[in-house]
């Protein structure tokens, strides 16, 4: 019997897992699509209340972080440990900034009386409640994924410094990278759906 485990299977497994993540968010996009169709005006009004600045900055941050991770993976393939580390640190820093931005942004909304079950949403038009309900659920779930992704990247970082991830054996880094890109991929859709439907 030959050893049947090679890295291509690990990658396939990771992709299969990513499919489940895509469908997971897909369920929320179903809700979005239906409620957008039903309450278009309210959704547009809601989107105007979101701070486009934060949306754009967070988009750029995530794109840069994705680049950092991709560069890190390339560096590792070339056995260039220091650049790989730099890439991971950069991505982690971007993730942290993203979360801080999110925190500020949510804080602003809370301060304006916009949070699930708040008087303003309870008494306002139904579409507004739905828009912000979805906003909090979707960005909350996405934020959770950012945290998970950062954990994975941090683990990879440690493994790289300990030489556990090498040019020949980089499945963990590869897969963490894929996860991070997926989180970015989902944000690419969240951004226009919530900030740009004005």
């Amino acid at each position, binding site marked *: *019997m030959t050893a*049947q*485990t*090679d890295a*291509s*299977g690990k990658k*396939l*497994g990771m992709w*299969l*897992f990513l*499919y*489940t*993540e895509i*469908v*997971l*968010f*897909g*369920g*929320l996009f*179903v*809700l979005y699509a*239906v*409620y957008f169709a*039903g*309450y278009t005006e309210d959704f547009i009004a809601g989107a105007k209340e979101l701070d486009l600045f934060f949306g754009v900055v967070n988009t750029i941050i995530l794109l840069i972080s994705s680049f950092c991770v991709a560069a890190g993976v390339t560096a590792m393939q070339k056995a260039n440990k220091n650049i790989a580390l730099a890439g991971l640190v950069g991505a982690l820093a971007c993730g942290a900034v993203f979360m801080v931005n999110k925190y500020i942004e949510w804080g602003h909304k809370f301060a304006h009386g916009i949070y*699930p*079950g708040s008087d303003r*949403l*309870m008494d306002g*038009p*139904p*579409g507004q*409640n*739905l828009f912000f*309900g*979805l906003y*909090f*659920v979707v960005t909350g*779930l996405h934020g959770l994924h950012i945290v998970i992704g950062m954990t994975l990247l941090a683990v990879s970082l440690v493994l790289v410094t300990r030489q556990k991830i090498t040019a020949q054996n980089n499945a963990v880094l590869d897969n963490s990278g894929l996860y991070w890109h997926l989180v970015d991929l989902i944000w690419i859709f969240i951004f226009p759906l919530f900030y740009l439907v004005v």
Partner: protein
Amino acid sequence: MTSFYQTPEPAGFAGIRSWLITFDHKRIALLYLFSILFWFLLAVTLGGLIRLELMFPGKTVLSAQMYNSVFTLHGVIMIFLFIIPALPAVFGNFFLPIHIGAEDVYFPRLNLLSWYLYMAGGIVAIVSLFSDGFPDTGWTFYVPFSISTNTNVSTAVFAAFILGFSSMLTGLNFITTIHKMRAKTMGWLQLPLFTWSLYATAWVQLLATPVITITLVLVVVERFFNVGLFDPARGGDPILYQHLFWMYSHPAVYIMILPGMGVISEIIPVSARKSIFGYKAIVASSLAIAIAGSLVWAHHMYTSGMSETAVFVFSLLTFVVAIPSAIKVFSWVATLYKGAIEMTPPLLFSLCFIYLFSVGGLTGLVLGAAGANIHVHDTHFVVAHFHFTMFGGTGFAFFAALHYWWPKMFGKMYDFKKAYIAAILVTAGFMLHYVPMFVLGLQGMPRRYYDYLPQYAAGNFFAGFGALCMIAGIGLMMVNLLASLTRERTAGTDDPWGGVTLEWTIPSPPPLHNFDKDPEVMDYPYDFTKVVAAGSGAASMDSETGK
């Protein structure tokens, strides 16, 4: 040849640990087997309580609130802890790697994690019963009721969430295993049909399960944060919840039945000692069921108030799904034609499967037709229908698989005569149990009713009586199987039925690494010419095991 039971694992894996931290797919399969049997018997007991309560009008053994919790728990356990994992997690884990000539699944650690998640889900479900009153929503958790009821819905939903994860990871593992670990000479069209059915199932598990995950998350979010996404007063749409729920739960029906069909596709050719009829058609129908089955979810919702266009589309698609199932049934029967059929307990269970599943499928046509559905929707007719498919189908396939692979898993043979009696008792009890429920449904008795109008008394009495017969049969079957474990190893269990797939080429129970030398893969997985030439069969086997 030492079997995987005797082979000691590395240091630190001795005793109970050799089971609790094992990565061996066979041991994990057995962990699943016994935990699944436990949940199954628990849920059977709960089902028995339901029937007992309904056997006579008025209050008999349960209060109304308790009755609602019992049928919810019965549904949750049967669906999430028995039917969905039964065949993939037990027999898939045990035989999928062997069927493709592999040493283990691709992610052995993940496999063990799936079992732990499975057990954790079950325990959370039970905990919710003792903490704050078990949810009384039914396993469908329909909003707004599931959001407004005071019982412990969140815990039960969380249990289902964990169990969904477990099922998803099993699917992920199987797909990777089938893609990456097939014996070098094994092409896709040399896979046994059970493996094919698991492959189709795994894709459904993988893609459909996240939908229920997010739906259940939304229910919990609604309960804790009061977001109002399904609250009609605040713009939410309760029917949308039903869409999301059935978007998973209808494909889940095929997660349940496809592996069962795979088991039958193994047993029939071996018993007839003849190639399966239409191998490619069966493979194609498995995939077709998986794909088309994902497009028909809203046929559970004809009366929900959704649009008539949707009723039209989903009803039409529903009839399309009927075809691949019909192909399978025809192919099984055609396989019997001009075979050399030997009656064995697994074959008897398989024949009962074909009959009961056909009843389930054909009554499904009544439910698929928009107009006819309206009358019987949410009545006992539906309950009888899905028990015919889920229990008469998947349940009987599970029993057939137990009897078929038991000697391979344990190296021990059970008593045939008791197995036949059990099979007949279960089937007869089953008919007496569920056929009256069809009649009750047509008369208009709704499901989930704690009490009923007087005209339904006779039917409910018969159903209750049948349920008791069925439970007796299940008890006999379990005793018969488990009693065989106390015996010495039975000789001749390596290949008692004359099977030709790879598991029958290795000793029973299999050695630790399954294959000591590279398996010899046949060009066609159901080529019985050599077995026919060699002769011999299970009948001789039985006289040896005897008393």
